[in-house]
């Protein structure tokens, strides 16, 4: 037998042996890359149990995540998925898990409490969710009891919606000069206040739709030097409610990064309004607004959709005033959950610590997006 044939047989035999070993006792990484269920080891500590769970969530292996839960008998897998990933085309359904942080709160030999803070990435920026997890030990294995937040079931019913809707017919392209057209809505700035911040100048205020028709609005601010030269020009991007119904007021905030207010001699404000088709529905109630001026100053509350239509994305905008009624700050938060009919959803708007003590009152509005009405 030649040496070549012998070498071939040795290689063949070694390969076959490795295949058998790999099949009978695969390494965890191989299981993961082959589509297996778990990369992690048997969760022998509370920390590793939470790490395993988040790892499964991150790679969208939600069935494995559900199967690993200690209290999965209390809810179904679809309920767990809805609770975790959102539903009804909410922001959460489009978000991906970015980072997470686990903090132990309490631990004994058989159970533990841990706080899980997950940061999600979305098109409107990151947002956080926090859950206090209860973990139990079962033999040498720890399992997470998921604190599911079940969505209350609204009884089946018919909610009549007969609010107004406005549609617009503009002048035709063939009409002569001087032919009357529908006029842009009349809007006016009812308050404006520039402030100097560490990151630059911020111009904020409030805009009123002073007309009897809805308006699509924006505000542009131009900073001028004392000699009238233009320093910078910016518009309110998403820190405004762009669709205003008659007599509705929206706050606005315009950022000028790296511009010090001392450089500014005057500010030119340009409110822009365009007629827009709009509906007076849905109506969203803002409940239990509580302003906390202590550490981590914030405004919290709940949104309750009073209509029968699901609001897919809601944007909370709050205006904060001092004791003289002067605008001190404008802040907002996108709510990552859809607003189902008559189902309150929490919101949390953060306030800069240095302004927290100046705030005496606030006013909050909600701008909404519904996929149904957009179609």
């Amino acid at each position, binding site marked *: 037998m030649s040496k070549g044939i012998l070498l071939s047989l040795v290689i063949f035999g070694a390969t076959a042996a490795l295949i058998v070993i790999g099949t009978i006792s695969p390494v965890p990484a191989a299981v993961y890359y082959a589509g297996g269920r778990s990369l992690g080891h048997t969760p022998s500590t509370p920390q590793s149990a939470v790490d395993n769970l988040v790892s499964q969530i991150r790679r969208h292996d939600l069935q494995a995540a559900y199967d690993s839960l200690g209290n999965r008998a209390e809810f179904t897998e679809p309920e767990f998925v809805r609770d975790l990933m959102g539903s009804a085309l909410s922001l959460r359904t489009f978000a991906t898990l970015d980072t997470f942080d686990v903090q132990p709160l309490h631990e004994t030999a058989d159970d533990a409490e841990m706080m899980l803070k997950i940061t999600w990435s979305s098109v409107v920026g990151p947002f956080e969710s926090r859950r206090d997890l209860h973990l139990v030990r079962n033999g040498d294995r720890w399992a997470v009891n998921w604190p599911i937040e079940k969505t209350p079931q609204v009884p089946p019913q018919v909610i009549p919606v*007969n*609010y*107004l809707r*406005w549609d617009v017919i503009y002048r035709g392209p063939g009409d*002569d*000069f*001087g032919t*009357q*057209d*529908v*006029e842009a809505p*009349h809007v006016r700035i*009812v308050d404006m206040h520039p402030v100097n911040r560490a990151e630059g100048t911020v111009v904020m205020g409030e805009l*009123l*739709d*002073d*007309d*009897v*028709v*809805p308006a699509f609005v924006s505000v542009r601010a131009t900073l001028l030097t004392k000699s009238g030269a233009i320093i910078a020009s910016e518009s309110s991007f998403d820190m405004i409610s762009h669709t205003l*119904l*008659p*007599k*509705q*007021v929206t706050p606005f905030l315009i950022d000028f990064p790296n511009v010090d207010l001392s450089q500014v001699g005057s500010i030119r404000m340009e409110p822009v309004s365009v007629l827009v088709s709009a509906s*007076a529905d849905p*109506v*969203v*109630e*803002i*409940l*239990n*607004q*509580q*302003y906390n001026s202590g550490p981590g100053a914030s405004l919290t*509350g709940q949104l309750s959709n*009073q209509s029968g239509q699901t609001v897919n994305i809601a944007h909370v905008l709050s205006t904060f005033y001092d004791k003289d009624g002067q605008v001190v700050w404008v802040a907002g938060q996108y709510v990552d959950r859809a607003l189902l009919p008559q189902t309150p959803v929490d919101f949390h708007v953060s306030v800069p610590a240095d302004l927290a003590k100046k705030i005496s009152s*606030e*006013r*909050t*509005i909600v701008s909404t997006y519904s996929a149904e009405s957009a179609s």
Partner: protein
Amino acid sequence: MGVRVGLPSLFALLLGPVALAQSGNMNLPATVTAGSAFSIPTSGSGSGVLYIVGPDQVIRRSVQLGTAVELSASDLSDAGHYVAALAANGTVDSGQFDVLPAAKAENLNFIAVPSRVPVGQHNGINGTAYVFDTYRNLITTPMPVSFALSGISGAPQSRTAITRNGVAWTSIDSASKQGAAKFVAQAGDATTTRIIQEVPGDPCGLTISARPDGKRISVETAPVRDCSGNPIPDGTIVTITETYKGSLSTVDVPLKKDIAQVDMPAYNGATISVASGVVAGNEIHWNGGH
């Protein structure tokens, strides 16, 4: 007698080098009315070519010198300054004349702003009329234009303004009652109509009342009207705010059939207030409906 201005350079370029001999002449009118027929008598013998160059057209005619060139009503309809040149036997006779708009107004371009105006606005409606003849030439000679605004209530208002350089304008008060007003401009037989929507002003005397509704309070406004008694349009936002022990609940409610209605949490000792735009209404203190 035509205005004769030598333009040798212009027509030298057009016709090539020529000697300015007086073998062909023409007699131009000083002014012509747009859309009217006229003739240009010529003198001399032989044949030539007449060119007329205006703001928007060029006319070329073969001419038998010694006869008049006839121009029909449809030949020159655009008002403006024209140049004419008669080229014959290597010479050019040139001159200028003006085509004036017809004196009779046939068309009015009427711009009325705003298209929506709150009731009771002093000089709140502005009208601007541009007066044109039948060929769409702006008539620059002064002429009276009458403006009239008639709504669903009150006596019609009218104004007369004299045009300046073809434009007349005026301002008129809006009526005290909402509705569609007819705004008419007239010059001679030409008339143009615009519709102005006179809309309610800000809410006036905004008030709410509340009654228990199970575990909640039903808050409802009285019919919302402006200070002239016009009902505020449906869809107008009314903000209802409930304050209780430092906690706030607000809702922006659109008016429906003159009334805004919403259910709020029921807290004894809560204060409920109402506002619309920059107008604040009354405030009520809830004590359980007793």
